[in-house]
Protein backbone atom coordinates (compact mmCIF):
# COMPACT_ATOMS: atom_id res chain seq x y z
CA UNK A 1 0.00 0.00 0.00
CA UNK A 2 1.38 3.36 -0.99
CA UNK A 3 1.21 6.32 1.32
CA UNK A 4 -0.33 9.43 -0.09
CA UNK A 5 0.88 12.88 0.87
CA UNK A 6 -2.31 13.28 2.87
CA UNK A 7 -1.58 10.12 4.84
CA UNK A 8 1.90 11.38 5.60
CA UNK A 9 0.50 14.75 6.68
CA UNK A 10 -1.87 12.94 8.98
CA UNK A 11 0.86 10.79 10.52
CA UNK A 12 2.98 13.89 11.04
CA UNK A 13 0.07 15.72 12.68
CA UNK A 14 -0.39 12.81 15.10
CA UNK A 15 3.25 12.62 16.12
CA UNK A 16 2.67 14.54 19.31
CA UNK A 17 -0.40 12.54 20.17
CA UNK A 18 -4.15 12.72 19.83
CA UNK A 19 -5.56 15.78 21.63
CA UNK A 20 -7.50 15.00 24.78
CA UNK A 21 -10.58 16.92 23.77
CA UNK A 22 -14.06 15.66 22.93
CA UNK A 23 -13.60 15.64 19.11
CA UNK A 24 -9.87 14.94 18.69
CA UNK A 25 -10.04 13.62 15.11
CA UNK A 26 -11.85 16.76 14.04
CA UNK A 27 -9.08 18.82 15.65
CA UNK A 28 -6.35 16.79 13.88
CA UNK A 29 -8.28 17.12 10.61
CA UNK A 30 -8.33 20.91 10.87
CA UNK A 31 -4.55 20.96 11.05
CA UNK A 32 -4.15 19.05 7.79
CA UNK A 33 -7.25 20.09 5.85
CA UNK A 34 -9.24 16.87 6.21
CA UNK A 35 -12.71 16.29 7.57
CA UNK A 36 -13.21 14.29 10.74
CA UNK A 37 -14.69 11.41 8.72
CA UNK A 38 -11.71 11.40 6.33
CA UNK A 39 -9.25 11.35 9.22
CA UNK A 40 -11.00 8.34 10.76
CA UNK A 41 -11.27 6.52 7.42
CA UNK A 42 -7.59 7.05 6.63
CA UNK A 43 -6.48 5.90 10.07
CA UNK A 44 -8.62 2.78 9.75
CA UNK A 45 -7.05 2.04 6.40
CA UNK A 46 -3.50 2.57 7.70
CA UNK A 47 -4.25 0.33 10.67
CA UNK A 48 -5.75 -2.40 8.48
CA UNK A 49 -2.73 -2.23 6.17
CA UNK A 50 -0.38 -2.70 9.12
CA UNK A 51 1.41 0.60 8.57
CA UNK A 52 -0.01 1.66 11.90
CA UNK A 53 0.84 -1.40 13.99
CA UNK A 54 -1.32 -0.12 16.81
CA UNK A 55 -3.30 2.95 17.69
CA UNK A 56 -3.90 3.66 21.32
CA UNK A 57 -2.51 4.58 24.69
CA UNK A 58 1.28 4.53 24.70
CA UNK A 59 2.61 4.09 28.22
CA UNK A 60 6.02 4.83 29.63
CA UNK A 61 7.49 1.82 31.39
CA UNK A 62 9.72 3.54 33.87
CA UNK A 63 6.98 5.71 35.34
CA UNK A 64 4.80 2.63 35.83
CA UNK A 65 7.35 0.85 37.94
CA UNK A 66 9.26 -1.04 35.24
CA UNK A 67 12.54 0.39 36.37
CA UNK A 68 14.89 -1.96 34.54
CA UNK A 69 15.24 -2.53 30.83
CA UNK A 70 17.88 -4.32 28.89
CA UNK A 71 18.76 -5.01 25.32
CA UNK A 72 19.80 -8.66 25.13
CA UNK A 73 21.81 -9.52 22.03
CA UNK A 74 23.12 -12.76 20.55
CA UNK A 75 25.30 -13.69 17.62
CA UNK A 76 23.42 -16.62 16.14
CA UNK A 77 24.05 -18.28 12.77
CA UNK A 78 22.24 -16.64 9.87
CA UNK A 79 20.51 -19.90 9.08
CA UNK A 80 18.87 -19.95 12.52
CA UNK A 81 18.14 -16.33 13.27
CA UNK A 82 14.72 -16.09 11.61
CA UNK A 83 13.30 -19.19 13.24
CA UNK A 84 14.62 -18.07 16.63
CA UNK A 85 13.23 -14.56 16.23
CA UNK A 86 9.83 -15.86 15.22
CA UNK A 87 9.74 -18.20 18.21
CA UNK A 88 10.95 -15.61 20.71
CA UNK A 89 8.49 -12.96 19.62
CA UNK A 90 5.75 -14.94 21.29
CA UNK A 91 7.42 -14.62 24.69
CA UNK A 92 5.41 -12.22 26.83
CA UNK A 93 8.55 -10.76 28.42
CA UNK A 94 10.10 -9.84 25.09
CA UNK A 95 8.85 -6.35 24.21
CA UNK A 96 10.63 -6.07 20.88
CA UNK A 97 12.59 -8.57 18.80
CA UNK A 98 14.72 -7.71 15.77
CA UNK A 99 17.40 -8.91 13.45
CA UNK A 100 19.98 -6.23 12.70
CA UNK A 101 23.13 -6.06 10.63
CA UNK A 102 26.39 -7.00 12.38
CA UNK A 103 29.33 -4.59 12.46
CA UNK A 104 32.29 -6.81 13.25
CA UNK A 105 34.57 -6.55 15.05
CA UNK A 106 32.94 -3.89 17.24
CA UNK A 107 29.47 -5.39 17.08
CA UNK A 108 29.13 -9.09 16.18
CA UNK A 109 25.47 -9.53 17.27
CA UNK A 110 22.48 -10.00 14.99
CA UNK A 111 19.54 -10.95 17.25
CA UNK A 112 18.12 -8.25 19.55
CA UNK A 113 15.46 -8.53 22.26
CA UNK A 114 14.22 -5.68 24.45
CA UNK A 115 13.18 -6.80 27.91
CA UNK A 116 11.47 -4.69 30.57
CA UNK A 117 11.12 -5.65 34.20
CA UNK A 118 10.43 -4.27 37.63
CA UNK A 119 14.09 -4.55 38.59
CA UNK A 120 17.44 -5.69 37.32
CA UNK A 121 17.16 -9.12 38.86
CA UNK A 122 13.85 -9.83 37.13
CA UNK A 123 15.30 -8.84 33.76
CA UNK A 124 18.42 -10.98 34.28
CA UNK A 125 16.28 -13.96 35.18
CA UNK A 126 14.18 -13.49 32.06
CA UNK A 127 17.27 -13.37 29.85
CA UNK A 128 18.72 -16.50 31.43
CA UNK A 129 15.44 -18.32 31.02
CA UNK A 130 15.14 -17.27 27.36
CA UNK A 131 18.71 -18.30 26.66
CA UNK A 132 18.13 -21.71 28.20
CA UNK A 133 14.78 -22.35 26.57
CA UNK A 134 15.95 -21.46 23.06
CA UNK A 135 19.34 -23.14 23.29
CA UNK A 136 21.26 -19.86 23.03
CA UNK A 137 23.74 -20.49 25.84
CA UNK A 138 26.57 -21.43 23.51
CA UNK A 139 26.34 -18.37 21.28
CA UNK A 140 28.18 -15.14 22.08
CA UNK A 141 25.80 -12.81 23.86
CA UNK A 142 25.61 -9.68 26.00
CA UNK A 143 22.99 -7.93 28.09
CA UNK A 144 23.05 -4.15 27.90
CA UNK A 145 21.11 -2.64 30.79
CA UNK A 146 20.05 0.93 30.35
CA UNK A 147 21.53 3.33 32.83
CA UNK A 148 20.07 6.70 31.93
CA UNK A 149 17.31 7.79 29.61
CA UNK A 150 18.20 10.95 27.78
CA UNK A 151 15.20 10.99 25.44
CA UNK A 152 12.09 8.90 24.78
CA UNK A 153 9.20 9.86 22.54
CA UNK A 154 7.48 8.80 19.34
CA UNK A 155 9.02 9.26 15.93
CA UNK A 156 8.25 12.63 14.38
CA UNK A 157 8.13 11.86 10.68
CA UNK A 158 7.31 14.61 8.25
CA UNK A 159 8.48 17.44 10.46
CA UNK A 160 8.69 19.81 7.51
CA UNK A 161 5.15 19.07 6.44
CA UNK A 162 3.34 20.86 9.17
CA UNK A 163 2.96 24.57 8.93
CA UNK A 164 1.53 24.99 12.37
CA UNK A 165 4.28 23.15 14.17
CA UNK A 166 4.34 23.56 17.85
CA UNK A 167 7.65 23.39 19.63
CA UNK A 168 9.43 20.06 19.80
CA UNK A 169 8.35 18.02 22.78
CA UNK A 170 10.80 18.46 25.60
CA UNK A 171 13.41 15.87 26.23
CA UNK A 172 13.05 13.87 29.34
CA UNK A 173 15.36 13.61 32.24
CA UNK A 174 17.68 10.99 33.54
CA UNK A 175 17.04 7.46 34.77
CA UNK A 176 16.43 4.43 32.60
Amino acid at each position, binding site marked *: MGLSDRDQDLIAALAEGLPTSPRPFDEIGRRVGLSEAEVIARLERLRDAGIISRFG*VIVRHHELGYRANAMAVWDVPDALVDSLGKAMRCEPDVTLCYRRVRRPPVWPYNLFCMIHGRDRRAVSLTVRELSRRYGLDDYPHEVLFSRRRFKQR*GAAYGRDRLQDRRSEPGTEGARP
Partner: protein
Amino acid sequence: MGRAGTEPDLELDDLDRRLLDDFQRDFPLAPAPYAVLAERLGCTEEEVLRRLARLRDLGAVSRIGAVIRPNTVGASCLAAIEVPAERLEEVAAIVNAYPQVNHNYEREHRLNLWFVVAADDANERRRVLDDIAARTGLEVIDLPMECDYRLDLGFPLSWG
Protein backbone atom coordinates in the same frame (compact mmCIF):
# COMPACT_ATOMS: atom_id res chain seq x y z
CA MET B 1 15.06 14.29 37.12
CA GLY B 2 12.63 17.11 36.81
CA ARG B 3 9.34 15.27 36.54
CA ALA B 4 7.17 15.44 39.59
CA GLY B 5 5.45 12.29 40.73
CA THR B 6 7.68 9.71 39.10
CA GLU B 7 9.26 8.61 42.37
CA PRO B 8 8.07 6.77 44.30
CA ASP B 9 5.53 4.72 42.35
CA LEU B 10 2.49 6.54 41.10
CA GLU B 11 -0.72 6.28 42.99
CA LEU B 12 -3.17 4.77 40.58
CA ASP B 13 -6.67 3.47 41.14
CA ASP B 14 -8.58 0.87 39.16
CA LEU B 15 -9.92 3.35 36.66
CA ASP B 16 -6.41 4.67 35.95
CA ARG B 17 -5.16 1.14 35.47
CA ARG B 18 -7.92 0.26 33.05
CA LEU B 19 -7.21 3.43 31.09
CA LEU B 20 -3.56 2.37 30.86
CA ASP B 21 -4.23 -1.26 30.07
CA ASP B 22 -7.38 -1.61 28.03
CA PHE B 23 -6.82 0.81 25.18
CA GLN B 24 -3.25 0.24 24.06
CA ARG B 25 -4.39 -1.51 20.91
CA ASP B 26 -8.07 -1.03 20.46
CA PHE B 27 -8.56 2.66 20.89
CA PRO B 28 -11.83 3.53 19.15
CA LEU B 29 -11.47 5.37 15.86
CA ALA B 30 -14.76 7.17 16.34
CA PRO B 31 -15.76 10.85 16.34
CA ALA B 32 -15.98 10.99 20.14
CA PRO B 33 -13.53 8.28 21.22
CA TYR B 34 -13.27 9.39 24.85
CA ALA B 35 -17.04 9.06 25.20
CA VAL B 36 -16.68 5.46 23.96
CA LEU B 37 -13.97 4.83 26.59
CA ALA B 38 -16.22 6.38 29.24
CA GLU B 39 -19.07 4.09 28.31
CA ARG B 40 -16.85 1.02 28.55
CA LEU B 41 -15.43 2.15 31.87
CA GLY B 42 -18.71 3.28 33.35
CA CYS B 43 -17.72 6.87 33.99
CA THR B 44 -18.19 10.23 32.29
CA GLU B 45 -16.26 11.53 29.30
CA GLU B 46 -15.03 14.44 31.45
CA GLU B 47 -13.59 11.95 33.93
CA VAL B 48 -11.74 10.12 31.15
CA LEU B 49 -10.29 13.36 29.77
CA ARG B 50 -9.29 14.60 33.21
CA ARG B 51 -7.57 11.33 34.10
CA LEU B 52 -5.74 10.99 30.78
CA ALA B 53 -4.44 14.53 31.14
CA ARG B 54 -3.23 13.69 34.65
CA LEU B 55 -1.59 10.43 33.54
CA ARG B 56 0.17 12.34 30.81
CA ASP B 57 1.32 15.03 33.24
CA LEU B 58 2.65 12.29 35.54
CA GLY B 59 4.53 10.74 32.63
CA ALA B 60 2.71 7.40 32.80
CA VAL B 61 1.19 8.06 29.37
CA SER B 62 3.54 9.18 26.66
CA ARG B 63 0.73 9.95 24.27
CA ILE B 64 -2.35 8.53 22.61
CA GLY B 65 -1.39 7.87 19.08
CA ALA B 66 -0.15 5.70 16.30
CA VAL B 67 2.81 3.35 16.47
CA ILE B 68 4.17 3.24 12.94
CA ARG B 69 5.66 -0.01 11.76
CA PRO B 70 9.40 0.62 11.30
CA ASN B 71 10.49 1.61 7.82
CA THR B 72 7.01 1.77 6.32
CA VAL B 73 7.04 5.52 6.73
CA GLY B 74 10.44 7.13 6.69
CA ALA B 75 13.71 5.42 7.48
CA SER B 76 14.78 4.59 11.01
CA CYS B 77 17.91 3.10 12.42
CA LEU B 78 19.46 2.16 15.75
CA ALA B 79 22.93 3.59 16.31
CA ALA B 80 25.58 3.43 19.00
CA ILE B 81 28.65 5.42 20.01
CA GLU B 82 31.51 4.64 22.33
CA VAL B 83 31.68 7.86 24.33
CA PRO B 84 34.45 8.63 26.81
CA ALA B 85 32.81 8.79 30.26
CA GLU B 86 33.68 12.43 30.80
CA ARG B 87 31.99 13.44 27.53
CA LEU B 88 28.81 11.42 27.93
CA GLU B 89 26.46 14.26 28.91
CA GLU B 90 27.87 16.60 26.29
CA VAL B 91 27.52 14.03 23.50
CA ALA B 92 24.06 12.93 24.71
CA ALA B 93 22.93 16.57 24.52
CA ILE B 94 24.24 16.88 20.95
CA VAL B 95 22.38 13.72 19.93
CA ASN B 96 19.19 14.74 21.78
CA ALA B 97 19.01 18.02 19.93
CA TYR B 98 18.17 16.34 16.62
CA PRO B 99 14.39 16.19 16.13
CA GLN B 100 14.98 12.96 14.20
CA VAL B 101 16.29 11.25 17.36
CA ASN B 102 13.40 9.77 19.33
CA HIS B 103 15.16 7.49 21.82
CA ASN B 104 18.52 8.02 23.43
CA TYR B 105 19.84 5.88 26.28
CA GLU B 106 23.02 5.29 28.18
CA ARG B 107 23.69 1.54 28.33
CA GLU B 108 26.21 -0.53 30.24
CA HIS B 109 28.65 -1.42 27.51
CA ARG B 110 31.78 -0.13 25.84
CA LEU B 111 29.34 1.26 23.28
CA ASN B 112 27.57 3.29 25.92
CA LEU B 113 25.24 5.64 24.03
CA TRP B 114 22.36 4.11 22.05
CA PHE B 115 19.84 6.09 20.06
CA VAL B 116 17.27 5.73 17.30
CA VAL B 117 17.18 8.03 14.29
CA ALA B 118 13.78 8.20 12.59
CA ALA B 119 14.18 10.24 9.42
CA ASP B 120 11.89 10.91 6.49
CA ASP B 121 14.12 8.98 4.10
CA ALA B 122 17.44 7.16 3.89
CA ASN B 123 19.32 10.28 2.76
CA GLU B 124 18.18 12.26 5.74
CA ARG B 125 19.07 9.37 8.04
CA ARG B 126 22.56 9.21 6.56
CA ARG B 127 22.95 12.96 6.89
CA VAL B 128 21.98 12.92 10.59
CA LEU B 129 24.36 10.04 11.39
CA ASP B 130 27.22 11.70 9.50
CA ASP B 131 26.50 15.02 11.15
CA ILE B 132 26.56 13.47 14.64
CA ALA B 133 29.88 11.80 13.83
CA ALA B 134 31.35 15.06 12.54
CA ARG B 135 30.13 17.19 15.46
CA THR B 136 31.20 14.74 18.17
CA GLY B 137 34.37 13.52 16.47
CA LEU B 138 33.30 9.98 17.42
CA GLU B 139 32.54 6.95 15.31
CA VAL B 140 28.82 6.23 14.94
CA ILE B 141 27.96 2.55 14.51
CA ASP B 142 24.69 2.23 12.60
CA LEU B 143 22.71 -0.98 12.98
CA PRO B 144 19.84 -1.00 10.47
CA MET B 145 17.05 -3.45 11.06
CA GLU B 146 16.84 -6.42 8.74
CA CYS B 147 13.75 -8.01 10.17
CA ASP B 148 11.16 -7.03 12.76
CA TYR B 149 9.90 -10.23 14.39
CA ARG B 150 7.52 -8.78 16.90
CA LEU B 151 5.04 -6.07 16.09
CA ASP B 152 4.56 -3.55 18.82
CA LEU B 153 1.31 -4.73 20.31
CA GLY B 154 1.48 -2.68 23.44
CA PHE B 155 2.81 -3.54 26.84
CA PRO B 156 0.81 -5.79 29.17
CA LEU B 157 1.00 -4.25 32.62
CA SER B 158 0.93 -6.37 35.75
CA TRP B 159 -0.02 -4.56 38.88
CA GLY B 160 1.15 -7.18 41.41
